């Protein structure tokens, strides 16, 4: 039975730049008791869509209908809508720290929600809140009732959010990227909890995610969105293993979790269209490998007998574009031909910060590691395990408390100023956040040109030429030399960071979560660029990431860190096949979604023209579609 039926939903948001057409004519039905997933990259309109269904987007203009238990949510007045929120539909948001009020205890916040909708006493509400906290397995719930959000870990905070969303036994729970901000093992726990609560409370769950791998693991059915439109909808197993829409297929080809390690990812070329002026035809046509001339018209909705629905002109399976060809690898660079095989050696490294009270906090504990010339060494672990600090110690940005770091035979702690300077050129870092790590007031040309300036290597026209060559190399348009970082997309900004890092032909590049802030299709572009650069420039990479599927894809060897120690280090393949440590096993189990590998066989049931004005869908004769193909 349908619990939520969204028909022809349109969401327009007026902004200073014009109207953002965030959601365009999206329809879907969520059945009672099911786990419904909505997947899309940033800007696909998935969050805006569910939030506007709840009336949470200020200034949004909506049309269409959202039928929930016999009422059209879009037509409800403020008071009626308020009683639906929280009581009948509970919401869970992405970042549980910023989504909980920092100045009130978690118990107070749950009690507040209960008492906003039910006339019960403070004591009864408190008792129910404690019971809820227990059910989402917060240890020592009665005592934690009076704790503030910042006193919980990320996973525990999300449990609190879930408890709060469940507090009035809502029929529908909307979870907007509930696990994105969490570590992978915690992510798995939260997903399991969500699924368990759905069964226990008999609720229906709509979960939004940018990560098909995460969604496919829990959702019964999945809807794929792109540029505010619905692309594909079907059983999650079918969508995942035999995508019917070229966009879904492209997304899967560019996802590291879905590709065999060693095989290059196939990125989706180009960028999503602007939502200020979306194309009138298929939104994906400009990036689609199967695009035809008819794609400039609104695609029909095709229904298959396995329940899959696709908005596409394409008949049959989407094609498989060839994987990008990788250039032949060169030998790893070294200034000294007699240099040994390892470029960095870390011996018994220890880093501790003294604290005012109590013992010093140990961030890195007895770490011994070597980075071999020309390899990609992965450093994985959960947040706070010390992986970034280790990388900073290797780059010489923090001084260790004990132990040594040796770079190409030079021990870092013994170096003088001048030697430091020359060493700096040989070790470079690419940072995680492409938005925060570039100075917004400086032009891209001068950011990339910094290394030349600092080391006094090139100036004036010469520097400009060098920088433009670098921009070309990393796939940026050299004509954009004078632009500011804000004029670039996330992926392009990361290319700027990479160009700056490789400017002086370093030997070791430390990549600190280089793709985790990027969308999947953009991630693949950047990962391929890194691979290409490594081959042509003979670079050595130290690759830090929390995303095991990405690490596995790019790394030769992997070091697993936990609590400031390296607990396991092995070849990537062997580590994945035969992990020794329980923590590694847990990490792997949490990261690898079980993907069914049986392609679906499906038969077209019907293809309907999208509704323009009239209510009745027009059936297209088969031949018309045939003829439309190029």
């Amino acid at each position, binding site marked *: 039975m349908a619990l939520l039926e969204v028909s022809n939903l349109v969401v327009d948001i007026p902004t200073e730049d014009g109207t953002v057409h965030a959601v365009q004519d999206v329809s879907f039905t969520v059945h009672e008791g099911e786990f419904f997933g909505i997947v899309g990259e940033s800007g696909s309109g998935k969050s805006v869509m569910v*939030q506007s269904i*709840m009336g*949470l987007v200020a200034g949004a203009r909506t049309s269409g209908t959202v039928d929930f238990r016999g009422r059209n949510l879009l037509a409800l007045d*403020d008071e009626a809508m*308020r*009683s*639906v*929120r*929280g*009581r009948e539909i*509970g*919401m869970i*948001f992405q*970042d549980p720290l*910023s*989504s*909980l*009020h*920092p*100045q*009130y*205890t978690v118990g107070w916040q749950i009690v*507040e*929600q209960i008492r*906003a*909708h039910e006339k019960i006493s403070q004591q009864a509400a408190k008792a129910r809140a404690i019971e809820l906290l227990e059910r989402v397995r917060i240890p020592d719930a009665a005592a934690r009732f009076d704790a*503030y959000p*910042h*006193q919980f870990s990320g996973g525990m905070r999300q449990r609190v*959010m879930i408890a*709060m969303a469940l507090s009035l036994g809502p029929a529908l729970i909307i979870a907007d990227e509930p696990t994105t901000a969490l570590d992978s093992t915690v992510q798995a726990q939260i997903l399991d909890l969500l699924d368990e609560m759905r069964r226990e409370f008999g609720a229906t769950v709509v979960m939004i995610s940018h990560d098909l791998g995460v969604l496919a693991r829990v959702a019964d059915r999945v809807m794929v969105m792109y540029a505010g439109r619905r692309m594909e909808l079907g059983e999650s197993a079918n969508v995942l293993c035999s995508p019917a829409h070229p966009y879904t297929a492209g997304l899967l080809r560019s996802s590291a979790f879905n590709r065999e390690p060693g095989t290059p990812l196939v990125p989706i070329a180009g960028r999503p269209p602007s939502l200020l002026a979306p194309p009138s035809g298929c939104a994906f046509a400009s990036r689609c490998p199967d695009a035809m001339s008819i794609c400039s018209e609104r695609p029909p909705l095709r229904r298959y007998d396995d329940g899959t629905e696709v908005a596409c002109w394409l008949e049959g399976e989407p094609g498989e574009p060839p994987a990008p060809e990788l250039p032949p690898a060169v030998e790893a660079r070294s200034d000294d031909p007699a240099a040994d095989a390892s470029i960095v050696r870390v011996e018994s490294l220890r880093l501790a910060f003294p604290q005012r009270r109590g013992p010093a906090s140990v961030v890195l504990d007895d770490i011994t590691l070597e980075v071999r010339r020309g390899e990609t060494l992965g450093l994985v672990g959960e947040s706070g395990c010390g992986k970034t600090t280790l990388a900073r110690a290797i780059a010489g940005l923090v001084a260790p408390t004990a132990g040594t770091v040796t770079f190409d035979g030079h021990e870092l702690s013994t170096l003088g100023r001048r030697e430091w300077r020359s060493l700096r050129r040989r070790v470079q870092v690419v940072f995680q956040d492409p938005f925060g790590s570039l100075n917004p007031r400086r032009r891209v040309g001068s950011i990339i040109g910094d290394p030349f300036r600092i080391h006094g290597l090139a100036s004036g026209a010469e520097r400009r030429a060098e920088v433009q060559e670098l921009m070309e190399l990393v796939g940026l348009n050299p004509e954009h030399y004078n632009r500011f970082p804000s004029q670039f997309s996330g992926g392009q900004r990361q290319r700027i960071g990479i160009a700056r890092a490789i400017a002086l032909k370093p030997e070791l590049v430390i990549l600190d979560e280089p793709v985790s802030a990027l969308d999947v299709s953009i991630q693949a572009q950047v990962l391929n660029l890194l691979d290409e650069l490594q081959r042509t420039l003979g670079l050595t990479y130290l690759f830090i990431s929390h995303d095991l599927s990405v690490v596995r894809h790019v790394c030769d060897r992997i070091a697993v860190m936990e609590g400031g120690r390296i607990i396991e280090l092995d070849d990537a393949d062997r580590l994945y096949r035969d992990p020794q440590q329980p923590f590694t096993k847990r990490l792997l189990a949490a990261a690898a979604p079980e993907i069914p590998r049986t392609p679906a066989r499906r038969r077209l049931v019907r293809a309907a023209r999208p509704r323009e004005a009239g209510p009745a869908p027009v059936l297209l004769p088969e031949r018309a579609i045939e003829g439309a193909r190029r």
Partner: protein
Amino acid sequence: MTRFILSRVGFGLLVLFLLSVFVFVLFYVSPSDPARIIAGDKATEELMAQIRVKLGLDQPIYVQYLNFVGNLLRGDIGFSYRSGLPVSDLLYARIPVTMSLVFGAVVLWLAIGIPIGIASAKHPGSLRDRFGQGFAIVGISFPTFVLGMMALFLLYFLPTKAGVTLFPPGGYVPFAQDPLGWAWHLILPWTTLALVVAAVYARLTRGQMLEVLGQDYIRTARAKGLTERRITYTHAFRSAMPPLVTQLGIDIGLMLGGVIVIEQVFGLLGVGSLAVTSVAMQDRPVVIAIVLLGGVFVVVANLVVDLLYAVLDSRVRTAAR
């Protein structure tokens, strides 16, 4: 927590010490001679030398300073050069006036500024918002004395001329003597001061509220199905408060040291008007006492703000535990 308070108190004492040294040095290097001011134009050198010896002005500056500090620690802040009265008596008579003025105005400006700020932030760009913003700009750019003069002209002079006495032109009646008269005499100065300052608070509140209303937890509060009223006050305003408290602490501290313009316009004999006459008369002990008094108010106000922060912010509170 105790450690925190002690360090703040220590820092405050250091500030007061530096302030007193600064004022002392300032008077020492200034060209005017207190003896000349006390004795008048026609005084002989002899008489002036006598006066200097009597006041201790013939001593080197560090001796003068040490004497001053020594007296201060005994609770003696000296005598006015001009009237010969103890400075403490002078201040004792003036402080209640300034305090009455400031605290009444605080209540008023908060009652005017904060609601305007909240209403503006709720609907940015709306007519209400533009009206509120306009009020803020007018309030901020209006010189205090012009507003005070206007208030006097419109609410005292014109009605009185027409035969109706709405408000008195100024003056002060102690609260203990006649609470109603106290309030009646202070209404015009209160309103004038409040209108000027409320503008600042309206802008500050609006800015803070706009920022807080964009936070994720406000979206959560909406998703919980709370009433708009509860979202605005219990959730949003609660988080917008700390910067307002900071500003309020600084303002109160500064103003208790004397609200010079308003006191002059309305003929209130407060600390501010005492400061003006004492500076004009080179009444060194009184000026030093007023400066230090102002310093004490600012230091204490800041300490109170820091303590309030711990009360208002769970993160500070739990970290201090």
